[in-house]
C-alpha cells in the first residue's frame, strides 16, 4: 500500500490561504504579547489573595437583604424585557432598511448600516453614562442605553437574516405584480423568522447580563448593590447577588432552548 498523503487540491499541497490563516495569527500574537504586559509572576502572587476572597464568600447570607435583592433583581429583569421589547420595535424597520435586498435605495441601505454601526461602537455602560448625566440616576437611563445598543445589534442581525433569505420565494412574489413592501412582508420576513428568534433569544440573554451591571454607573438594576457590597466587603451580600444573577441567567437559557426548539420545529409558524 502506498502511504503517500495529499491534500484535496490540484497540486496536493495545502492552499496558501490555509497556511497564512494559521501562520499569520500566530505571528501577530507572538509580536504583540509583550505590549499587553502579560506577567506570570503577577498572576502567581495574586493567587493567595484570590483564595482569600473566595474563602470570605463562605459566610451566612444576609437574610434581611432578601426583600431588597428580590426587588432589585425584578427591576433588572424588567429593564431587560422593556429595553429588548422597545429595541425590537425600533430595529425591525431599521433592519429592513439595512438589508441590501429589501432597502428601497442603496444610499438608504448604506446610511442605515452606518447608523447601526455607530450605535454599536460604544458599549451599554458608556451610553448609560451619557443618559445618566442627561436624565439623572435611575432605571430609565439604563433602559434607554440598553435599548439603544440593542437596536444597533438587532438591526444588524435582522438585516443579515433578511439578506440570506431564499431569493426564489421573492421572485415568485414579484412575478404576481405586488409591491416591494408586500414582497418584504410576505416573502422575506416569514422566511427570516427562525433567524429572528435565534438572535432575539441571544440578545435577551446578553441584555440580562448587561442590565445587571448598568447599576455601576447609577442606571438602575442590581449592579449598584453589587458594586456597593464589593466596596464595603459585604460578603454576605456579594454571594447572594452573584447566585441570583446566575439563577436567572440559567433559567432564561433553559427557557430559550425550549422556545428555539419549537420555532425550528415549525410550531411557531408565521401563519
Amino acid at each position, binding site marked *: 500500500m502506498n502511504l503517500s498523503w495529499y491534500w484535496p487540491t490540484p497540486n496536493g499541497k495545502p492552499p496558501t490561504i490555509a497556511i497564512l490563516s494559521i501562520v499569520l495569527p500566530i505571528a501577530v500574537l507572538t509580536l504583540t504579547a509583550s505590549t499587553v504586559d502579560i506577567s506570570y509572576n503577577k498572576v502567581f502572587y495574586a493567587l493567595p489573595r484570590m483564595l482569600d476572597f473566595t474563602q470570605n464568600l463562605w459566610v451566612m447570607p444576609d437574610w434581611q437583604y432578601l426583600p431588597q435583592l428580590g426587588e432589585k433583581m425584578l427591576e433588572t429583569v424588567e429593564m431587560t424585557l422593556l429595553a429588548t421589547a422597545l429595541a425590537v420595535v425600533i430595529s425591525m424597520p431599521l433592519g429592513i432598511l439595512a438589508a441590501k435586498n429589501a432597502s428601497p435605495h442603496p444610499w438608504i441601505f448604506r446610511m442605515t448600516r452606518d447608523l447601526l454601526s455607530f450605535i454599536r461602537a460604544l458599549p451599554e455602560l458608556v451610553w448609560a453614562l451619557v443618559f445618566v448625566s442627561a436624565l439623572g440616576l435611575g432605571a430609565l437611563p439604563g433602559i434607554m442605553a440598553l435599548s439603544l445598543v440593542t437596536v444597533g445589534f438587532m438591526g444588524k442581525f435582522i438585516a443579515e437574516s433578511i439578506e440570506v433569505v431564499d431569493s426564489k420565494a421573492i421572485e*415568485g412574489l414579484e412575478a*404576481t*405584480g405586488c409591491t416591494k413592501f408586500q414582497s418584504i412582508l*410576505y416573502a422575506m420576513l416569514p422566511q427570516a423568522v427562525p433567524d429572528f428568534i435565534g438572535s432575539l433569544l441571544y440578545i435577551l440573554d446578553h441584555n440580562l447580563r448587561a442590565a445587571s451591571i448598568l447599576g455601576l454607573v447609577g442606571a438602575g438594576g442590581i449592579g449598584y448593590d453589587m458594586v456597593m457590597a464589593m466596596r464595603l466587603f459585604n460578603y454576605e451580600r456579594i454571594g447572594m447577588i452573584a447566585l441570583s444573577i446566575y439563577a436567572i441567567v440559567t433559567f432564561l437559557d433553559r427557557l430559550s432552548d425550549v422556545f428555539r426548539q419549537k420555532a425550528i420545529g415549525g410550531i411557531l409558524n408565521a401563519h
Partner: protein
Amino acid sequence: MAYISLKAVHKTYPNGYCALKNINLNIEAGQFIAVLGPSGAGKSTLLRAMNALDPATDGEITIDGVTLNKKNYRKIRAHVGMVFQQFNLVDRLNVMTNVLVGRLAERSWLSSLFYLFPKMDYQIAEAALREVDLLDKAWSRADKLSGGQQQRVGIARALAQQPKLILADEPIASLDPKASEEVLKLLRKICSEKGITIIINLHQVEYAKQYADRIIALNAGWLVFDGSPEQLTKAKQAEIYGTTIEEIHHEPELVLAYA
C-alpha cells in the same frame, strides 16, 4: 391584433451574453404554446422578458394591447401568472396564504401589513385550490407538501391572479413522470376550459407534441421553429437540438451564465 406580440426583441445580459436575438412572434389568446430548445437557448429569458422579470434590452413586447415599459411592469404582472421550475413558494407560509399572495397586487399596503384579506379573496383562492384539487391542504405549510403538490400550489397562486396569460418556466423539470403529467394535464385543462393563454417551456418534445396547440423552438437565442405539433418532424427536431450541442461545447461558460 394578436393577444401577445413581440417585435424585434433582443436581450443582452450585463455580462455581454446575448440570450435573445431578434424575436418576432404573434400569439393568439387561449392557445397552449410550448417552447422547446436546448439548455441555454433562451427559453427562460423569453418568458421572463414577457413579464419583465428580465426585461428585454431592445424591441417591443405588447400584451393585450399594452406595451411593456419601465413604468407598467407591475400592472402587467398583476394579470400574468407565472409558474416556476422550483415552485418559488414561501415555504414557511401555509398553502392558503401562498395562494392569497396572488391577490396582493390588488390590495393596499395597509391591509397587507396586517395580513388581512377580504372574503372575496378567500373565495378566489378557494376556487383556485379546488381547481388544482388541493383544498384539503389549504392550511398545511407549503414545504410539507410533495413536489407535485407544491407545483399545483404554484399554479393556484397564478390562478388567484385571475390571469389571461400564464407563463410556465419548465414547470415539470423538477417533478417525477407521474406528477409531470398531472401538472401538464392541469395546465391543458385550464387553457381549454378557462381560455387562459399558456406559454410553457419544456425539455420533452413528446409532451410538447401531445399537449400543445403550437410549438416554438429557440436555439442560441434565435427563433428556429414555429409551427403546429404535426409540423415538428424528426428532421426538424434534429435541427433544433443537433446544431447547438457543438455550440454548448464551445461556449460552456455562456451556457452556465443562463442555464
